[in-house]
């Protein structure tokens, strides 16, 4: 009896101890180290590449420049981070002082955050502390300057709720990735690179049936998507998947309702049903497929960043050359789609920031040339150096930045691994070609060819992206586009897999009427009105 009582007491003590410890460990996170200096809390979407944000040479660099301690609130990847932010605001949580790297932020969303009071107006702060930002902005040509300012300024009040990342450089990062075709296979089969969709079909069939990689097995994949089908559609009609509206002779129209799009779907269906195009959904899987077994290529045509689309050990990249956009059978089409991400919103100061001056100084430091290069390549002196003697870069110019360390596409703790408010210029962004890490010469060759082609290839003269919409129109666009993209991708799958037949009028009309029900016609009217206003 006595023993039992003692046991209970001991157990009680142990339990109480555990509860107290639990409480203490709960508090631990908030305690933090008390430093005498100032502190800036930065909210940033976490990158899988970065091993440590605190023990990080970019953090140290910023802390030194800023003269303040930096603390992080880590969000998830860029796309999910937007939801996290929305929920934090709705729940009334305290926001970090500054948000950087929320690259999925759209203009209208930012205006709304500003209007609701979650982001503060940076206009006066820029005037006072934004020296580097202003310096780089004023160095831009007038039309580019206007475009950036229009993008960040709220049209009705003129408030600026965010700072941009703008790529004022012509690099392969900022055109839509072109297609790459296996030249060795073409030579093996005595074929020319296809220039239109009929030739493409013949080449793909040959790739499939004639064992171009000479290993005696039918392991060739003629064409690998996901991104590549945009190129096939663009052979028929200009189709920008993010803004699927075109302007011809002053009239706005939706390419997805056009006869050309219908033909494109039929053509893709033909390729798909004959096993000429393959859709590899997970990115890691596509990477393995393109890399082949390291020496033998498996894929005829693919599309993506040459630097990151293959495993590093793979040697097959030297077999590929850039394939120019294709034309349809009449010689029309062959458009090139620009990547829309050369202008992003990546720096905001929130309502909970107690020291906006400090926050603004931080954002301004990001615009310094040294910071831009550090953001991308890491520590100066260890990862890259500034050389006085300029050498050619990949894009036909001369550069002063020499990259020493080539392992930055893997895990590191020398960058933050996300977009920061930067303005990329030839000076601070382009590096000496022979020192580009990754696939070195082969990679450079493809990048250079892509950019050269992108400079000369056909583009529509007018695009809806340059039209200015009012706030209400923007909100309506977001609503309509949400349904539009869902409907589009659902039908794309249905047409491609043969569940629906685009050559049958009934199926096609159903598709068009569903698009209309989403409000596509309404959005065309909105764009038309905006076009007529200008």
């Amino acid at each position: 009896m006595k023993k039992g009582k003692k046991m209970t007491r001991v157990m009680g003590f142990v339990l109480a101890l555990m509860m107290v410890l639990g409480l203490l460990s709960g508090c631990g996170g908030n305690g933090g180290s008390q430093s005498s200096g100032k502190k800036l809390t930065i909210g940033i979407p976490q990158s899988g590449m970065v091993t440590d944000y605190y023990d990080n040479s970019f953090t140290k660099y910023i802390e030194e420049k800023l003269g303040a301690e930096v603390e992080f609130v880590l969000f998830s990847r860029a796309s999910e981070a937007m939801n996290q932010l929305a929920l934090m605001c709705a729940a009334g949580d305290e926001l970090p002082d500054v948000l950087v790297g929320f690259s999925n932020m759209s203009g209208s969303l930012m205006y709304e955050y500003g209007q609701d009071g979650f982001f503060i107006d940076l206009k006066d702060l820029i005037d006072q502390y934004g020296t580097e930002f202003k310096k780089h902005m004023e160095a831009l040509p007038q039309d580019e300057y206007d475009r950036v300012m229009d993008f960040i300024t709220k049209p009705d009040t003129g408030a600026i709720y965010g700072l941009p990342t703008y790529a004022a450089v012509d690099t392969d990062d900022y055109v839509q990735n072109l297609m790459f075709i296996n030249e060795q296979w073409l030579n093996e089969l005595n074929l020319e690179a296809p220039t239109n969709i009929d030739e493409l079909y013949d080449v793909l069939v040959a790739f499939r049936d004639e064992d171009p990689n000479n290993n005696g097995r039918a392991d060739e994949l003629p064409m690998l998507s996901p991104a590549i089908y945009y190129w096939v559609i663009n052979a028929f009609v200009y189709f920008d998947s993010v803004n699927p509206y075109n302007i011809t002779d002053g009239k706005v129209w939706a390419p997805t309702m056009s006869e050309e799009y219908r033909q494109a779907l039929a053509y893709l269906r033909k390729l798909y049903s004959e096993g000429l195009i393959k859709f590899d959904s997970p990115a890691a899987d596509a990477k393995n497929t393109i890399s082949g077994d390291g020496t033998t290529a498996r894929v005829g045509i693919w599309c993506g960043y040459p630097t990151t689309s293959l495993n590093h050990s793979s040697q097959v990249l030297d077999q590929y050359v850039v394939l120019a956009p294709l034309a349809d059978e009449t010689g029309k089409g062959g458009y090139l789609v620009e990547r829309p991400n050369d202008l992003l919103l990546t720096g905001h100061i929130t309502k909970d920031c107690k020291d906006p001056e400090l926050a603004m100084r931080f954002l301004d430091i990001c615009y310094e040339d040294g910071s831009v290069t550090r953001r991308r390549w890491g520590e100066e002196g260890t990862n890259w150096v500034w050389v006085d003697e300029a050498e050619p870069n990949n894009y036909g110019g001369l550069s002063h930045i020499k990259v020493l360390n080539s392992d930055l596409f893997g895990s590191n703790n020398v960058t933050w691994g996300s977009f920061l408010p930067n303005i990329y210029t030839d000076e601070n962004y382009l590096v000496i070609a022979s020192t580009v890490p990754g696939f070195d010469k082969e990679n450079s060759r493809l990048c250079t060819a892509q950019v050269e082609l992108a400079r000369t290839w056909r583009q529509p003269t007018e695009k809806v992206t340059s039209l200015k919409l009012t706030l209400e129109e923007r909100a309506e666009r977001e609503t309509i586009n949400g349904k539009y993209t869902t409907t589009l991708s659902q039908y794309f799958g249905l047409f491609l897999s043969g569940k629906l037949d685009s050559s049958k009028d009934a199926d096609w009309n159903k598709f068009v009427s569903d698009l209309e029900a989403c409000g596509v016609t309404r959005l065309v009217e909105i764009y038309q009105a905006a076009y007529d206003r200008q």
Partner: protein
Amino acid sequence: MTAAKRNKAPVNTLIPKRGFARFKKNFLRDRQLYLLIIIGIAPFLLFHYGPMYGVQIAFRNYRISDGIIGSEWVGWKWFNEFLTDPNFKRIFLNTLIISLYSLVSFPLPIIMALLFNAMRKQRYKSVAQTISYMPHFISMTVFVGILNLILSPTSGIYGNIFRLLGGSGYPTDFRTLAGSFRHLYVWSGVWQGMGWQTILYTSALSSVSSELHEAACLDGASRFKRIIHVDLPAIMPTIAIMLILRMGGLISVGFEKAYLMQSPLNLSTSELISTYVYKRGLSDFRRFSYGTAVSLFNTAINVTLMLITNYTSKKVTEDEISVI
């Protein structure tokens, strides 16, 4: 009347009064017990009933800065928008079909639990049980990753087996086929959850009296007969309750798994109400009101389905088995 009441007065002291007075009396007597209940009820009030206050944003045009009460009242606008959305029919059907299809997996854990229970070797039984639980503990993201790797026609086990058996080139990629999404979804779910779901049935089976089994043995019942006539009737109430609960969650198909398994080609079958709410309600434009309205619609259907099942169960079992 007053006379009648007075007449009954002595009886009243024995039989508790009706309504509030009775409650009050009981409350005062059992106040310590009620105090204990608070611990159980408080989380419900705080985390389940409290947030229901916010459901009204389904009928408002909610803006964070205006607050819940301050936002403009728009009535059925969001419900209308959802019901007239051209995607509505397909999304709703997708959700319905996949949840009905998921129901086929309902008897499987029961069969498995009966089999476990019938095993003679105790050690073998517990090892098999533990192994069958394991997939349950894999996080959904990792689980879908494993599924993708296994099913990859180029580099996965599936593709390699295909080539090993003499196939040339690459087999069909089931991950991207609209037609195979539902099968993949349901049967991978069976693989992941079946072992775990047996737990409840196993515990119900362990309470079956061994006397019943002995009696059945004496009557010459075989092992199989004993499963059918002793074990199964014993766990029938558990099965019925599980079915009712399952019906309550019929339309709320898990969001993460479908979202992770989506690819551009299978969207026509893999877009469900939950993933659509996430995309249109959160990702697009912070349209919280729209998202809430769709979820509320979803919940209304769920509750209706559960009540129907519950009612049917009540009728069939003559008030024996029901949750409400």
